[in-house]
């Protein structure tokens, strides 16, 4: 069993109004052994960060539609741009999670997560008992995205909201230093998605964080299930640990009720 915690449906020249079918991506996933995919939204298809409310709602509506079409295969997170009006954002969480079929929140590079505008949104996540996946990457010398969050920013968010499960993605992007940044915060898990399959990182993260704090993710499209899964299968850790990374930890975080 494999649960992919970090996916997007970006196939082809999709637009929000007429999305291409998701089935080809599902076929590739199943061919690679993926049994469930967690959709994080059709981000950036409007061509910009900080999407306006109308586009944000369209992104989440599409995710909900995909989850509804294949509830045994997809779960999905509600994408939020924290710069938008706070009342609208709480309403959007309620529309998609409390009243909808999404089971987590997703933040991208719209606002650095030290900003207090995230706090009421994470408070609502705590009330709903859902996880939050917040983009991160170590950007010591990369200043191309002014609002994005580095691992120390994620650590700050985790300290402010210790009861919320926070998934920090992109193990290769956050690297050894990112692992150390979130080490003191047991509510932070790291997903393996994105970047190159840098050897030794999973082994290092397991050693430092323990096997319960890593999740397999691919960051498809744009990434390939084959090598993203291969980086976990090829890690020099036990079969039991690989199983935890590939699905057990995700099943726990997503509350799927799957144990075997």
């Amino acid at each position, binding site marked *: 069993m494999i649960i992919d915690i970090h996916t997007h449906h970006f196939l082809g020249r999709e637009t929000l109004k007429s999305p291409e079918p998701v089935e080809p991506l599902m076929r590739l996933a199943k061919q690679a052994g993926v049994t469930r995919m967690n959709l994080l939204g059709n981000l950036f298809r409007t061509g910009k960060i900080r999407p306006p409310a109308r586009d944000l709602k369209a992104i989440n509506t599409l995710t909900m539609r995909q989850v509804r079409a294949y509830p045994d295969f997809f779960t999905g997170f509600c994408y939020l741009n924290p710069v938008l009006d706070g009342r609208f954002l709480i309403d959007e969480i309620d529309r998609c999670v409390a009243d909808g079929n999404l089971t987590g929140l997703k933040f991208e590079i719209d606002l650095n997560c030290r900003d207090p505008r995230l706090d009421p949104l994470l408070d609502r996540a705590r009330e709903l008992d859902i996880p939050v996946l917040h983009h991160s990457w170590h950007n010591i010398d990369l200043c191309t995205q002014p609002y994005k969050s580095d691992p120390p920013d994620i650590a700050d968010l985790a300290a402010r909201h210790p009861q919320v499960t926070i998934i920090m993605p992109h193990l*290769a992007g956050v690297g050894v230093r990112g692992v150390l940044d979130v080490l003191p915060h047991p509510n932070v898990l790291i997903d393996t998605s994105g970047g190159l399959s*840098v*050897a030794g990182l999973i082994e290092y993260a397991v050693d430092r964080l323990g096997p319960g704090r890593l999740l397999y993710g691919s960051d*498809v499209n744009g990434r390939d299930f*084959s*090598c993203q899964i*291969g980086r976990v299968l*090829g890690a020099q850790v036990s079969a039991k640990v690989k199983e935890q990374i590939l699905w057990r930890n995700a099943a726990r975080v997503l509350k799927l009720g799957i144990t075997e």
Partner: protein
Amino acid sequence: MIDVNVSLGRWPFQRFLFDAARPLARHLKSCGIRKALVASTESVLYPDPDVYDEACFEQIREVPGLLPVKTVNPVLATWRTSLCDFADRYELKAIRLYPSYHRYGLDDPIVNELVKTAIKLKLPVMVAVRVEDERQQYSLMQVPGVPLAAIAKFAAAHPRARVVALNGYFHEIVAVKERRNLYFDIAFAELTDTLRALTEYMPARQLLFGSQTPFLTTKAAAMKVELANISQGNCERIAEGNAVSLFRLDR
């Protein structure tokens, strides 16, 4: 499979899990790789590549399936005698160049001389586009990648040479139009359904299986081939066939 992109040794910015020849060979075999072209990691950074090349080649000499690739820095005064000497002593399968690390251009006249020597020795010329993802490099040692366009121009200028670009990203590889004598390994190339996508842009005969072990996870590259949605013939070409003919290897 035959892996054209393997290194042996140590690297100051990464802890390798396989830094000796026998464990490396065992590991590669466990991933379905029966032969690998191996260069020394230390030869990228140490001022005289011969020192670590020799240590590397002496190690792999005793290990079946590991085949030597000489790192050449044409800026050094001794490169020509060194290369000929190593070609006499070891069964070299190729040479590797690191223009960004050794700070020269592929259009430098000294490189012309080097290519002539490589052709004479029947050695393909591997050019490392990069060693690491630039975004993950040590902050005080930022080394830019070699533009694929420069490698393509270099290959076109030396039509008798066989040139292999290592560690190019997908978007860089597919942007190359002039590539008659140019080959690419797949270590850094990734897109949804990577090999199917690559072969939509170029014939499979120009693609080589490479993993960039031990920098990257070997199994990740192996699974690109294992799960490839391409014909069995093209899969075999990328996994082995192209390497056999390009590097004159035994089947």
